[in-house]
């Protein structure tokens, strides 16, 4: 292989080609040849570098990383001479250093270890060579070249990798069961139906590092003996779907998917299937029904998918993040992997931090990190100097934990014991201005809407739970509601078929356990301590603070605020729908809630 001292990447985005990228490239090659640099400088195409509309055609020169923009055939010559002969950058054509602030993924904080997220933002997800350059597909080559399927399964068992979708089932064991199933053909499915509100870890991985998931799936397919795979991605993630499809095409071109992968004789291909907006399809049996083209209704397990899954054949289903772990474990070794994490949960976990924190976004920490470290050290604590009230983990089937649980190390067992769940990794932090009864009501609205309707306890039970909670929030709760809620929760958990029904009452149970005082205030005193529940509050404008700027009156959706310019404004409580917009827009803290 020729050795080049520099590489020039030329953006081949359609918009760049429109603006003459091909001529620029030709000119570049000619200029380099004229200076006898063809042996030293390599010219390659890349799908896109900067913003094609404003910066294209553009090139990126490595190893310096210089980004030259808005090129024409006339500017290529001077850049080549300055950069490659004189060794200095030609400032006038260079892109301004941009503040790259990906709000979803910031620079890692001290307590973070990035394994799953490490490549995101650093490689071009639409260029397989970027992934290969960071040791991508090395693990697959090792597996196909040196390991038997049994050895792969044993390695994953020894790594103690557990399902990142939320249940925490040992991945190696799942693979073993699927391998042992006598029936054929076998299928490999990736659950990318990340439906928990507040969770977007999987989307980021699919959009930023799709090959890590494809490689993990292919290794798994080799281990269980599957030749066809499906990624089931929710329809809310159109960019993830298109990135995945590009990645799959490129992997096929490179012989990393399809027939006879890397000359090993092993065949495996992957297809992306889209959901259509049903939360329950994240449940594995519902997901399989949906791939089969039916309503996404869960069915009774056993038989588990490992013996009877897609089209009645043995099927292995893992979550996006689980698959993304696999190549890293194989490539870097067990010793490295098992050095991270807690006793029973090895490795790292990504979380989507959201809510009332200073820094929200994606994080990745080893198992065993405490909630307090995540919230305060990584999340920067509660914003606007307010007090912490609760952290909600695990999505709508999870629970809310108060202050006293913050020193718990995060793993599957401890969160479960505390009355919440690990879930897929949504973590929503709420400050003192959040009403916990309202939050329970919010989650119940979600689950009753998303219940597939197959089991009566879930379909009707969640509806009744919601009605009771709505009643309490409206100030019409009665003391009997509390035991009624408890009984209903127990019955729904006991009698529902799938995880959705069994988990649906969790937000109610956990808020009743930790925040009973708020339920009691709503029921006995008809008061919402957090001043959220609309029926139990009124808004008022303080004459002392009001400057008569009219901002509130102009923003009120129901025109309930009256007052002349520079005069104190007044809210008509009869008309007021208590939406709180006036309080939000007031610059003088003149609007208060009673």
């Amino acid at each position, binding site marked *: 292989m020729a050795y080049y001292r520099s590489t020039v990447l030329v953006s081949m985005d359609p918009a760049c080609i429109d603006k003459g990228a091909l001529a620029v490239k030709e000119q570049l090659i000619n200029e380099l040849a004229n200076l006898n640099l063809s042996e030293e400088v390599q010219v390659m195409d890349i799908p896109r570098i900067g913003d094609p509309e404003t910066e294209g055609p553009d090139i990126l020169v490595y190893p310096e990383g210089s980004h030259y923009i808005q090129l024409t055939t006339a500017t290529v010559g001077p850049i080549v001479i300055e950069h490659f002969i004189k060794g200095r950058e030609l400032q006038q054509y260079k892109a301004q250093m941009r503040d790259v602030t990906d*709000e979803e993924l910031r620079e890692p904080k001290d307590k973070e270890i990035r394994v799953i997220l490490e490549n995101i933002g650093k490689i071009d997800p639409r260029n397989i060579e970027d992934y290969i350059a960071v040791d991508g597909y090395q693990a697959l080559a090792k597996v196909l070249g040196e390991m038997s399927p049994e050895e792969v399964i044993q390695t994953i068992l020894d790594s103690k990798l557990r399902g990142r979708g939320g249940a925490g089932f040992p991945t190696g064991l799942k693979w073993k069961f699927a391998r042992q199933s006598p029936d054929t053909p076998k299928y490999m499915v990736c659950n990318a139906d990340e439906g928990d509100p507040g969770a*977007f870890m999987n989307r980021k991985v699919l959009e930023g590092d799709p090959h890590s998931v494809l490689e993990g799936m292919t290794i798994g397919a080799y281990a269980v003996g599957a030749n066809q795979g499906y990624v089931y991605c929710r*329809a809310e993630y159109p960019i993830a779907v298109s990135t995945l499809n590009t990645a799959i095409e490129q992997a096929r071109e490179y012989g990393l998917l399809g027939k006879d992968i890397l000359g090993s004789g092993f065949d495996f291909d992957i297809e992306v299937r889209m959901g*259509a907006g049903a939360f329950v399809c994240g449940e594995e049996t519902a997901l399989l029904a949906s791939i089969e*083209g039916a309503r996404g209704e869960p069915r009774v397990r056993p038989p588990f998918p490992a013996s009877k899954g897609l089209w009645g054949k043995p099927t292995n289903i893992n979550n996006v993040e689980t698959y993304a772990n696999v190549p890293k474990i194989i490539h870097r070794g067990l010793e490295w992997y098992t050095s991270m994490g807690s006793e029973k949960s090895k490795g790292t976990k990504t979380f989507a931090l*959201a809510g009332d924190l200073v820094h929200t976004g994606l994080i990745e920490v080893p198992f065993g990190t405490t909630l307090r470290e995540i919230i305060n050290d990584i999340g920067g604590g509660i914003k606007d100097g307010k007090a912490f009230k609760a952290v909600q983990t695990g999505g709508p089937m999870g629970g809310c934990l108060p202050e006293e649980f913050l020193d718990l190390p995060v793993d599957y067992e401890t969160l479960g014991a505390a009355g919440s769940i690990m879930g897929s990794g949504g973590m929503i932090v709420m400050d003192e201005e959040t009403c916990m009864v309202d939050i329970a009501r919010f989650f119940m609205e979600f689950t009753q809407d998303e219940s597939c309707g197959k089991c009566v306890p879930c379909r009707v039970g969640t509806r009744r739970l919601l009605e009771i909670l709505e009643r309490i929030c409206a100030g019409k709760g009665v003391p009997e509601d509390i035991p009624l809620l408890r009984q209903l929760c127990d019955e729904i958990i006991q009698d529902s078929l799938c995880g959705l029904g069994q988990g649906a009452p969790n937000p109610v149970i956990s808020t009743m356990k930790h925040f009973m005082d708020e339920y009691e205030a709503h029921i006995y005193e008809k008061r919402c301590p957090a001043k959220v529940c609309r029926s139990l509050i009124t808004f008022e404008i303080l004459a002392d603070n009001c400057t008569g700027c009219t901002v509130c009156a102009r923003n009120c959706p129901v025109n309930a605020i009256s007052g002349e310019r520079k005069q104190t404004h007044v809210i008509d409580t009869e008309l007021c729908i208590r939406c709180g917009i006036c309080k939000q827009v007031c610059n003088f803290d003149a609007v208060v809630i009673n």
Partner: protein
Amino acid sequence: MTSTPMQLDPLENPKMREVIDNTISEFGDQNGALMVVLNHLQERVGFITKPMQAYVAEKLGVPVSKVHGVVSFYSFFTTEPRGKHVVKFCIGTACYVGGASQLIDKAKQVLAIEPGQTTPDGLITLEVCRCVGACSQAPVVVVDEANHGRVKPSQFGKVLTDIQKSEAAV
């Protein structure tokens, strides 16, 4: 999304009929084809009427009841035409905590329609949706395919006037 006269079923419109036929022949012969066909029909036609459901059922050789069952199960499938632009409010947890309901109030006030309805001129449909996975930018409003993050009620008017302006410019 292609606009269609409201009173005419897409099957009666030769152009749409062709789109439907092409979609069915393109995706109809794979395993689990029904979902794939319906997803593409929803995208290309914009909605899936009852006659279209019956047509798909006949072409794919599955009962109409199954097609209708699938269409009514998934929230992405709609049976009626939507506005030219769809404004969706994310009401995932982070957006809810971040004030999504105030945004919806504001939208109802400005457009005088409820979520699920379309403005009389057929320009804008309001919808609410579950988490779009952009929680760090809560509250999020999705206009067609583009996410707008950290939208305050006072800024929401601009989102709508931008749509109206882009229409006027066409």
